[in-house]
């Protein structure tokens, strides 16, 4: 898999994960030894950028940089858990629908199409109204549960087309049972495509989470990038002159989406080699 897009995307993503995991400890130990930069009221609020506080302090008197680096990991976690949930559910349902024939397939297709058109944002908001105490896992699972229909929708036709290949017929004739056919014959060639869908699902979940935060209906108290952006907007930090407190989290989100987009493009090319030759016009 020597695809440059995938490699660049993975490197970008790995760097971000490193910052997310090591960032908080690194920042607090090198910049603020012996202090608690992530605690409310540690400093005077809304201090402008300085050597001490590279992107200033926020409205709660915390160091902006510290808040930023500790917001990355929860955001990524939500993306990963929600993406894995929706991809897992979607792949199972997509495989069942694609592998089954006749009435069961029709029924599954109608169900998938139905759930697909239900607008998720209002429903997510509804659930947000019911759940009193949010935590990261609850939120991720709910986001994931709403994303499966898209995955199932795109996996099903792929399974269907593979099922008709002659090598699958051969496997059936040589006496493999359906489970063996699914796991040994159908799943392996679809893995890059599933990776592609997984990456799309991560983007979708992170997008939805930050969107909820920004209209003020997110999981309050979850320190995510979306929450930092929303808080910055509400406290008009740009007008105060604290550009970094909004541009950094926004930039980090876009950076992660770009990395995932590169991985996607690459996985799509691996899965669908014809795409590369036609897009590059036979260079």
């Amino acid at each position, binding site marked *: 898999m020597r695809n440059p897009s995938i490699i660049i995307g993975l490197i970008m993503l790995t760097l971000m994960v490193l910052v997310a995991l090591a960032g908080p400890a690194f920042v607090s130990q090198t910049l603020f030894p012996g202090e608690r930069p992530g605690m409310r009221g540690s400093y005077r609020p809304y201090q402008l950028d300085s050597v001490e506080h590279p992107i200033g302090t926020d409205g709660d008197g915390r160091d902006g940089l510290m808040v930023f680096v500790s917001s990355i990991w929860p955001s990524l976690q939500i993306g990963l858990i929600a993406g894995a949930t929706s991809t897992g559910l979607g792949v199972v349902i997509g495989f069942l629908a694609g592998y089954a024939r006749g009435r069961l397939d029709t029924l599954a297709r*109608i169900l998938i*199409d*139905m*759930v*697909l*058109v*239900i*607008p*998720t*944002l*209002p*429903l997510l*908001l*509804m*659930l*947000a*109204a*019911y*759940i*009193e105490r949010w935590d990261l896992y609850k939120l991720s699972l709910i986001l994931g549960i709403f994303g499966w229909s898209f995955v199932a929708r795109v996996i099903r036709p792929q399974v269907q087309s593979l099922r008709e290949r002659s090598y699958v017929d051969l496997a059936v004739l040589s006496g493999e049972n359906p489970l063996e056919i699914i796991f040994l014959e159908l799943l392996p060639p679809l893995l890059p495509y599933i990776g592609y869908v997984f990456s799309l699902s991560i*983007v979708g979940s992170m*997008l939805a989470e*930050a*969107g909820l935060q*920004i*209209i*003020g*209906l997110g999981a309050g108290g979850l320190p995510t990038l979306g929450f930092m*952006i929303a808080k910055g*907007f509400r406290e*008009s930090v*740009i*007008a105060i002159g604290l550009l970094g407190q*909004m541009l950094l989290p*926004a930039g980090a*989100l*876009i950076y992660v*989406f*770009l990395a995932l*987009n590169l991985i996607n493009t690459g996985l799509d090319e691996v899965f669908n080699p014809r795409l590369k030759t*036609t*897009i590059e*016009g*036979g260079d």
Partner: protein
Amino acid sequence: MTPNPSSRAAEPNADQQRAARREVFQYAVRRFGVYLFTLWAAITVAFFIFRLVPGDPMNILLGNLTRAEGRQRDAAEQEVIIARYRQIFGVDDPLPLQYLNYLRKAFLGGLDLGPSFVEYPAPTRDLVFRRMPWTIGIFTTSVLLAWFIGTGLGALIGWLQRSQLSKLAVVISTLLQITPVYLVALGLIIYVGYTWRILPAGGPYARHLQPEWTWEFISSLLTHAILPMLSNIIVIGAGFTLGMRALMISVLGEDYLTFARAKGLSPFTVLKDYAFRNALIPQVTALAIIVGATLNGTFIIEVLFQLPGLGTLFVQAMGLRDFNTMQAVVLFSIFAVLTLTLIVDLALPLLDPRIRRLA
């Protein structure tokens, strides 16, 4: 997909025409049937999701009321309030009965979705109808503009794929396409609206004006609409540009295009009649795919720009746990997404010259 330009000369006979017309008609009927069924099914799923989520909305309502009034009520008073609310919602009936009542009122009772709490006792229906023009206006205008701009630009940079400028355009479009629409909206509000003060970035029109048919009001309305629409157009337009570019490039690799060039047709004719035409059909299908996501994005944009649309209504309703109103907005979204997808699907055969010629 491959058209056969030379067959244009041969007129199809009457029998073929009739058969083709019947086929198109059958397609339309079948598609409409699927539409009605999906609409019913989606409404049903939404209804049950609303009823089956855990937690009692009555307790939340009561809690809200207590907070709003700043005093605790005694138990007897609470009982009365809850009983009244339960009656308004009809939640004492068994679930299947609630469902049938709901469908009956919604479809046979002239879209009666119950009273709203946001503006009690105004019916939910009236609220939704009053807010709808904002959402539909922003949504359709920006999607259509984005589609036209994106399709034009995409065709151009696909056609000129080897030039440096189009490579730059691809990079810029990719960056814009992956940027969440609300971040673009926030950027426009902060910079264009407040820092540079070029365009207004909050509210539907200037505060001192009243809705009326005067130039002052209309121009205020239009300038206030620019930034919300622009947020949508930038992100969706970039997506359409990339999509159209990929379609153009794959069409450009087809044999019939080489043949058209070899025949000595002018590059413009080849672009217009051969490449663009054939790339256009999947590009219209793409329009149907983005409808749902864009509606979600438009809801968020409304909230950020303080426009009195359905997204804002939903957020208000949520603050009061006004379930009738929330449900009405969800129903409207389902209806809008399905209907717009239906329109695109039905318009598709009209675009395809092979079908249009016969039908």
